């Protein structure tokens, strides 16, 4: 995405604020012109003092009034301009955020799975801020800078052509100095960033694992490794900081030299009777501030470039391909028969995963998914819930191809409990009623009782009104709440993920009972770790490395003497 296309898209986005933007530019131009005129008036006031014996009090008062009026009006304009700019800038940010959140909800999971959350957060929050502030405020500054330069030039010219030309000829000097320093310090900053990046990585790694360091008495080595990087950073920083901090004194010195030249030139002109002392003060104050807008503009240009690259990142998100549109057809209350016909699926074209997978489940059947950690159980969930679409072949619910019914109606018929529990930072009540926001307290409590979660909910400080924080509940309790959430919905099909070792035996038994209560009469897929679940399942799917390698009943699979029977037997093998 190049700068112009980003700019075009952005203009479209700020289109509705265009009248406000133009108003702000207009105010800004007026304010600048007025402010530039004030030194001229001060010059005239000083000239009134030229003749000691005959001071022009009348003009002095007139000028005083003019200065006060101009200062007040231009201040008002400046204020209004800032307020308007602020408003536009924050409204645009908000528009971007609104678009982004809607986009995120409409993106396929393949996009969200392949982009780290931090990256998306950065685009939606950080980049949007930078884009709007950098671009709008930068643009405004740029505009004000150009107006200032033009007006200054005009006023100076109206005073004296030669001196104006001197200033004009010398101004690039301060640029060249600034440019020279910036280009030299750029590589130093790069070196500093690199050194800092390396050190931060080490800090992250070491400090996050202080306990490990303690257990292996690794402190001294860690400290030595840190010291090496710290020394690199120190040297790189010294160069970058010192060199870049030369910009200001250097450009100031150049400006001061210009100032001196203007003063000298003015003095000769005054002696020749071509200028007044008031003019001198005007030209000096212009000479003093003439370079400022130039410096502003050069920093604004960097800022603008930065903003455009942020814009490109945001538009990349906003323009990512959305989910295919939902078909009209609805899946009404499903009975729960599921067919998987010749399904092929892979996340990446070059790495085949599921090939020609066939399976049938009658309503009410329980299907255990078995395999070592990381065997690919999420893939199956992804396909059943249509988080991902199959590459070819169909999954059917009650004979309906799931690609031909709307996603919400399909998902409404599923209940899902994952091992990585996800709860909102909200009250217990809101979390349980997540899938049924109109549920009454009676319904919620009934579901909680059935799911064995009521026992601990009752003991929470505020019962159902307790706000769930990250650490306020144990892993097992969180999972019970997730089960309750599904229990309230009572969908005809289930996807369950049994706990592994992180839950204690008692809670595990409760969860087991809750699962059993849920599964009664429902088609359920259970990612199973417990032998009893596996043995009682109507069908077992054995997965390894993302593929379904065996399927059948327990006895059949044992008889096969394959992967499943090995997995099963290793549990009982003696040590000797």
């Amino acid at each position: 995405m190049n700068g112009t296309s980003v700019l075009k898209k952005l203009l479209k986005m700020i289109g509705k604020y265009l009248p406000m933007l133009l108003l702000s530019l207009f105010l800004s131009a007026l304010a600048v012109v007025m402010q530039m005129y004030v030194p001229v008036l001060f010059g005239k006031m000083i000239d009134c003092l030229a003749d000691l014996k005959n001071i022009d009090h009348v003009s002095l008062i007139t000028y005083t009034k003019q200065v006060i009026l101009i200062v007040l009006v231009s201040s008002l304009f400046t204020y209004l301009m800032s307020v308007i700019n602020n408003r536009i800038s924050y409204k645009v940010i908000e528009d971007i955020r609104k678009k982004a959140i809607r986009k995120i909800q409409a993106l396929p999971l393949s996009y969200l799975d392949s982009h780290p959350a931090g990256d998306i957060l950065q685009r939606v929050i950080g980049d949007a801020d930078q884009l709007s502030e950098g671009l709008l405020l930068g643009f405004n500054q740029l505009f004000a800078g150009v107006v200032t330069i033009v007006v200054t030039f005009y006023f100076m010219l109206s005073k004296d052509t030669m001196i104006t030309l001197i200033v004009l000829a010398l101004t690039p000097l301060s640029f060249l100095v600034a440019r020279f320093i910036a280009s030299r310090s750029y590589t130093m900053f790069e070196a500093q960033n690199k050194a800092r990046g390396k050190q931060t990585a080490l800090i992250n790694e070491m400090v996050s694992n202080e306990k490990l360091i303690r257990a292996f008495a690794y402190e001294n080595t860690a400290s030595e490794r840190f010291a090496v990087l710290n020394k690199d950073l120190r040297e790189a920083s010294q160069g970058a900081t010192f060199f870049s901090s030369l910009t200001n004194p250097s450009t100031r010195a150049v400006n001061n030299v210009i100032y001196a030249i203007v003063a000298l030139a003015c003095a000769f002109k005054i002696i020749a009777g071509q200028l007044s002392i008031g003019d001198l003060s005007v030209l000096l104050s212009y000479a003093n501030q003439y370079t400022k807008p130039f410096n502003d503009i050069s920093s604004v240009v960097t800022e603008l470039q930065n903003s455009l690259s942020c814009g490109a990142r945001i538009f990349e998100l906003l323009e990512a391909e959305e989910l295919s549109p939902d078909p009209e057809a609805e899946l009404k209350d499903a009975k729960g028969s599921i067919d998987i016909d010749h399904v092929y699926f892979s996340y990446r074209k070059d790495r085949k995963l599921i090939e020609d997978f066939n399976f049938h489940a009658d309503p009410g059947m329980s299907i255990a998914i078995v395999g070592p950690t990381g065997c690919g159980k999420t893939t199956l969930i992804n396909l059943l819930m249509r988080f991902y679409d199959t590459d070819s072949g169909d999954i059917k619910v009650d004979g309906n191809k799931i690609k031909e019914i709307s996603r919400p109606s399909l998902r409404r018929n599923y209940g899902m409990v994952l091992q990585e529990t996800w709860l909102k930072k909200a009250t217990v009540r809101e979390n349980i009623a997540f899938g049924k926001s109109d549920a009454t307290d009676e319904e919620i409590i009934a579901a909680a009782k059935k799911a064995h979660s009521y026992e601990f909910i009752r003991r929470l400080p505020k019962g159902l009104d307790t706000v769930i924080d990250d650490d306020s509940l144990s892993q097992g309790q969180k999972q019970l709440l997730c089960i309750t959430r599904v229990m309230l919905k009572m969908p005809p099909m289930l996807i369950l993920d049994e706990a592994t070792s992180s839950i204690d035996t008692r809670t595990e038994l409760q969860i087991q009972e809750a699962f059993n209560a849920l599964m009664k009469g429902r088609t359920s897929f259970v990612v199973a770790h417990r032998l009893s679940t596996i043995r009682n399942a109507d069908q077992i799917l054995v997965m390894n490395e993302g593929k379904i390698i065996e399927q059948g009943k327990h006895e059949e699979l044992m008889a096969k003497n394959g992967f499943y029977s090995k997995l099963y037997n290793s549990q009982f093998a003696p040590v000797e």
Partner: protein
Amino acid sequence: MMRMKRLTVYLKAYKKEALIAPFFKLLEALMDLIVPLVIADIIDQGLMASGHNILIRDFIFLIVLAVAGMGFSFVAQYFAAKASIGFASDLRQSLFDHIATFSYRQLDKLGTGTLITRLTSDINQMQTGVNLALRLLLRSPFIVFGAMIMAFTIDVKLALIFAIAIPLLCLAVFTIMLKSIPLFEKAQMALDKLLSNLREDLGGVRVIRAFLKEKDEIASFDADSDALTRINVLVGRLSALMNPITYILINLATVILISRSAIRVEAGLLQQGDVVALYNYMAQIIVELIKMASLIITINKSLACANRVSDVLAIQNEMVYGENDLETEKTETAVSFHDVSFSYDETSEDALEDISFTALKGQHIGIIGATGSGKSSIVNLIPRFYDVRKGSVEVFGHDVKEYSKEQLISLIGVVPQKAILFEGNIRDNLKLGNEDADDEELCEALKIAQGYDFAMKKDGGLNAHIEQGGRNLSGGQRQRLTIARALVKKPSILILDDSASALDFATDLKLRQGLAALKDMTVFIVSQRSSSVRHCDTILVVDDGKLVGSGNHEQLMKDCEVYQEIYYSQFPKEQAS
């Protein structure tokens, strides 16, 4: 004050630099202050018919002032950079080393997130703060008051206008600033809320879609987003006042200054050039005041960071260690607990109560029990990661408190629950606890840990690169490397803290067989799986911080209810025979 003292120590090493920098900055400011006087001299003396020489002299003087100012400033920048960077580097190293002395208990309390922020962004912010303070903290007030004093030397009566204008300007600038600081904080809080809202959405995207809650999530995000916009607009409106107000004040002061001057000039008390000089001083003041306001915001931020860093430096490790190496060969007992009670925090309930047991040299000890029952707490006491509240822990016949830190750690190999590896190659990771190990020893450890085959299949074998946190390995592979890493230390006592959970049953079995072959090593196996501990010499059954059973599998099956419950939950009864 105590807090700052802990940090100023680090600046003391750069005392010379920290004094030179502001001194030269003041010299530079002095150059700036002289300029209006030279201009006044040009107007008052140089414009006479005979003034050519004076003009040339003044011009050269102005150039000298410009060049000298630049030179002084260069010197100041150099020393300010040197002092602030040196200060920050030294502080960073000290803080890093200081954190490495913290006990487990202190690490639990502080959390790694905080410590990382202290080491990185907080110290960076302090570096910026010190640098700016050395250069500008004195300069701006010096110019403001210098300009006023210069005004007094020109004309006392007119200088009074300065004396009134400066406090008024200060009042305006600082009122607006102080009012906006709390608003900035509020805006930051609103931003944090929005961020965590979005983070939650992204983390729970599957659940949200499964429950068809997309629209509600959009609504709640919009609400937070609105709130942030509102506060930002409010802050913006307040800060937008700064420019117009100071502009009005300074120009009013200038108008008054020139009108008053008229009377003084008329009375012959003042020359026109002096008026121009006074006018120029007024202009200098406003520039410096605005600089000072933004400087104060930066310094304020740095002070907050400084306080946080200082608080971490103030924490001292409370553990005291022995000094001499102790004799460990003579006893047959490897580890013994005597009525040990333990809590993670002075205020919290005991995590362990009255635990007593003895493990002999070469024995395998299994520890089983529910999550949170205290299994890990028991093994954490052996290398003295935590101190007991009551009772004592002995290793090879000596209280762990009598050992030096180094000796105790060298005796014990720990495989923690979380299989963490450092970025680097396999070899470096395996040598973490024993830098002198050769490749042969590493391979042997890998073989026992069942990691040899997969490690050799990697590109480069022992030199194979491991990404940060071991991301490029599977959970099971990471666990096998962490087990090998502990074995490379050749410890007398090995602790496996639920560290085979990601291994499939077959690999778990081979690992246990491999460990069984190391006859002299005492091994503690913490697990949730009955199958992992059932062949141990002694199994400790922990429930709610208490030892409810100890013995071998057969004994426990007979008389320990909790053990039976665990066992049958994993092996249905009909299969257990």
